[in-house]
């Protein structure tokens, strides 16, 4: 328990007290909220280069549909308007303006992509409309002082590679590290975390650093190049398709480094199975969510519930795609925030409640991982756990590591 946690719980208590008192007296609404409904807006790449992520928006819509069937939140139905932005920032700006000015939503939820969210951030601050739980792991979303209307959700990229760096320094202090990364904001954020984590030793320890473009067909040549550098540790910062290629190629050319794989690509069904489960033995990564394909959760209540939910409300959705678990979990977080808001559905109170999450732990998150936010902490999930793949399942090891501890 740190001072921060104390502060968080104290502020949560105050906030709850504040929220409870006027709620009894009167209902307060901003545009988008009424006695019967809460209007929520979103942009998602249903088409374009990142359309694989579109399933997140569909899983969230399905979750809200379920909540509505169960009676809504404090008697109010969720009206969820999710629009396609094709992963193009100008389109995001246009669609978000539509949501705020024409549809008059109470808040914008889980807009996906770092460039898209950057494009609308200034506008959201000017309009004082919450930009909640953005679907990107960039580090910059946790900035309550500069951007009080924007909040992230997942552990940020830099935290993750910092954790790998610490692990490397502890286990293999003389490692020669090779890095493969995607040439965009996501890849570079990860790379920065790794270098920051290694500190002064980054220059001497990283012996090879190669990037690829999302538009490239394969990363085979990059793997051969990295193998040639003589590295014995491989930090693999790639999105699912390329992660599968990299794992397979490294195995096929007989390169056997200690292989760190970023959390973006830990799906057993979507990455490791296509790469070859036998070729994936020994991979090290981090996680904060349960993977539906991982056999250790086959009888876990959370995953059983999730499977039933998927079959009933999102039958077209893939049961082996862990991004559907992601959407399900983040939607629960929003519902929790709206529940906390009670009858005070102003934009200001939404931000206040989002910043008052106290040990919130949906059961689809790994045991021991909880969400905590506060007026100065806009990063809901800050802890992850290291894990190693044994050929069948991810085996978690070591304690739950929090970014604060680093």
């Amino acid at each position: 328990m740190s001072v921060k946690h104390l502060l968080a719980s104290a502020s949560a208590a105050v906030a709850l007290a504040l929220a409870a008192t006027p709620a009894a007296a009167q209902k307060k609404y901003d545009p988008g909220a009424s006695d019967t409904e809460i209007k929520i807006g979103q942009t998602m790449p249903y088409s374009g280069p990142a359309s694989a992520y579109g399933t997140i928006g569909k899983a969230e819509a399905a979750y809200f549909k379920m909540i509505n069937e169960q009676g809504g939140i404090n008697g109010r139905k969720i009206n969820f308007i999710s629009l396609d932005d094709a992963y193009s920032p100008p389109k995001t700006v246009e669609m978000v303006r539509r949501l705020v000015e024409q549809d008059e939503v109470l808040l914008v939820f889980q807009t996906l992509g770092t460039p898209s969210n950057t494009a609308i951030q200034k506008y959201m601050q000017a309009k004082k409309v919450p930009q909640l739980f953005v679907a990107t792991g960039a580090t910059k979303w946790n900035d309550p002082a500069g951007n009080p209307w924007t909040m992230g959700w997942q552990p940020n990229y830099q935290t993750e590679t910092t954790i790998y760096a610490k692990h490397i320094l502890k286990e293999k202090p003389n490692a020669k590290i090779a890095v493969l990364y995607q040439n965009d904001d996501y890849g570079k954020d990860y790379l920065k975390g790794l270098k920051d984590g290694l500190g002064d030793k980054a220059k001497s320890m990283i012996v090879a650093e190669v990037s690829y473009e999302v538009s490239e067909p394969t990363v085979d040549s990059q793997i051969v190049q990295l193998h040639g550098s003589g590295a014995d540790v491989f930090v693999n910062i790639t999105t699912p398709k390329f992660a599968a290629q990299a794992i397979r190629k490294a195995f096929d050319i007989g390169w056997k480094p200690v292989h760190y794989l970023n959390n973006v690509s830990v799906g057993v069904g979507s990455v490791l199975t296509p790469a070859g489960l036998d070729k994936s033995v020994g991979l090290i990564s981090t996680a904060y969510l349960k993977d539906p394909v991982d056999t250790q959760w086959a009888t876990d209540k959370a995953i059983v519930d999730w499977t039933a939910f998927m079959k009933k409300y999102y039958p077209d959705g893939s049961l082996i795609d862990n991004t559907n678990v992601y959407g399900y979990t983040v939607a629960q977080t929003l519902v929790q925030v709206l529940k906390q808001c009670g009858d005070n559905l102003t934009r200001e109170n939404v931000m206040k409640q989002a910043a008052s999450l106290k040990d919130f732990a949906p059961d689809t998150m790994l045991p021991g991982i909880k969400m905590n936010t506060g007026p100065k902490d806009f990063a809901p999930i800050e802890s992850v756990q290291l894990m190693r793949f044994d050929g069948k399942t991810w085996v978690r090891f070591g304690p739950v590591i929090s970014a604060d501890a680093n």
Partner: protein
Amino acid sequence: MSAVAPPVGAPLAAAASTRRLRLIGLAVLLVAACALPFLVSNYRTFQFTLVLVYAIALLGLNILTGYNGQISLGHGAFYAIGAYVAAILMDRMGVPYWATVPVAGALCLVVGFLFGLPALRLEGHYLALATFALGVTMPQLLKNKYVEHWTGGVQGIVIVKPDAPFGLKLSPDQWLYLFTLAITVVMFVIGWNLIRGRVGRALVAIRDQPIAASAMGIDTALYKSLAFGVSAMYTGIAGALGAIAIQFVAPDSFGVGLSIGLLTGIVIGGLASIPGAFFGALFIQFIPNVADQISKAAPWAIYGIFLIGFMFLMPMGINGAIRLGWARMRHRHSKPAQREGG
């Protein structure tokens, strides 16, 4: 200028009356366009600003492809250059937004002309591929670490939205719309003059009969490069205006889809037609939204159906269809008159 004089007599009067009608029509349209931001919401005004932006870009591409017959699959790159020039000048150097537009145009004119010189050796499909390469490369070039200091790399640049000057009581969106409208009018008048004059006839001659054109003394190489440069200039100006309206530039904004979208726009609007640029702009601005409304699962399939539908029903583009409809209507109206006379 040796404009061919129209035949004397009645046809001249008819031409004059058509001309007068057209001028009145244009004036009415212009008044309506000026009134628009005061009739619709700020959000709609913003959308129509983008329509004007696309219209300028489409006119530029039409000069190259429609009138000169050179296909470009890479005009998104010039749009990106224009956008980045505006963003960098505003954000890094504190240049006022209105001053960035001519700079963006001038730079794109030069870049387009220089790109046009070697590209001249390539004809038809080969040129299309070369420009396609340009369009594909541009987002990656913007991320390059040597220019990252200027372009902001993958994070892009956020710019501040300009307020209305002189204490005018206009919202930023209304002001930006009127500002863009003024530039659109200027660009279209210039474009119209260019195309109706000697230069335009030379461009069309090169498109239709390149050998005959050079035999008549047209410097084919120079005109083709010029067409490329002017076309890039229009697109660059559009890019700058687009960046100011969107308030953000990033490599992901200027993918190859933009280049293809622009080409789609001129074909849908009508190749080698000036008003077609507006129809094409309306199409690329609004049809993807309509498609998204119809299906979240496959918005591009719906978009494709629209595209096929438009091409099937209006093979000459929207402008071509309107002309055809207009001609038929006049024909039908003139028939009874003839009968009376006979």
